[in-house]
């Protein structure tokens, strides 16, 4: 896959974040952007026909291990960010009675 295609995935997430009317959909768009970033980093370290970076056989071509070690961090932190955002969504629904951005902002101004 091309790095430009993965950047288009990040842009799709950005567009959804700017135009979505529902809070849950905004959380999904953050997840889409994160997936695009993971694919972009793994693409940069890719090598055609390369093996996984484990040195149990001699004389093999391996892919770059540095982006993979960085992306483990991204995956774990992304899951925690998603769980925190969803918990905040539940609390917003219990307090305001809706998860539409416009309704929540209007009711917040009134109170």
């Amino acid at each position: 896959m091309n790095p430009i295609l993965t950047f288009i995935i990040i842009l799709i997430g950005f567009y959804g974040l700017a135009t979505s009317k529902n809070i849950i959909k905004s959380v999904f768009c953050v997840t889409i952007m994160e997936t695009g970033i993971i694919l972009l980093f793994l693409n940069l370290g890719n090598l055609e026909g390369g093996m996984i970076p484990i040195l149990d056989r001699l004389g093999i071509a391996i892919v770059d291990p540095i982006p993979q070690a960085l992306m483990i961090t991204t995956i774990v932190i992304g899951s925690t960010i998603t769980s925190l955002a969803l918990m905040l969504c539940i609390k917003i629904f219990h307090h305001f009675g809706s998860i539409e951005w416009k309704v929540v902002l209007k009711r917040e101004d009134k109170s």
Partner: protein
Amino acid sequence: MVIPLIKRLVLLIMLGGLLYGFILAMNDLELVYNDFGKEYFLLNGLRETGSLNLVTGIYLDYRLFDSLFEAGILLIAVSGVMWISQHKIQEKNASFMLDKQKTPELFIIFSRLLYPIMLVFGFYVIINGHLSPGGGFQGGAIVATAILILYYIDITKTIDVKLILTIEKILFMALVLIGALSFVTTGHPFTNFIRQPEYQAIYLMTLNVLIGVKVALGLTAIFTAFLKEGR
């Protein structure tokens, strides 16, 4: 009617500008990315870290400071979810979400068969993290999935969330202490504290087990908080 259309058009033009800049940056890829690091790890990685799996060698030895803060972020997120989801009214049990009448009997029986196999596979992935694909983070997620299947088998089981949070704090302190132990033996903080190449795997296995248990407990605590929230 017209103004939102103009807003979207402006947004699309700005995103197109971002894409154009990215394509320009990708034209000279040598400025963005090179594989000097890969050559260095291929030559010296096994000798300096004692780990066949280079990814484990990087995140437990060269970049251990980074991994410590990642474990800290997991701890902070778990305490944040706990704090946001606390209730004024005392909940009695989480049995309203998984109804015994609605869950098929076949599913429960197969969960009983699958649960020990998943637990053993998770611990295998954790302990063999320096030899084969895997490690603390991935194996911890598998162990957490095995613990969550327990909810299907026996609904009356309860988990003490406060105890889980205390255990996680103690594990994080142990991680920082083991990482800082190398300042005494080698003079550099946050690397491997064992000098002999034959015994370096002990350090990697210890840190992998600590991180694996920490990730499994954290994901279980987050799941329990969400289960209590539904009504």
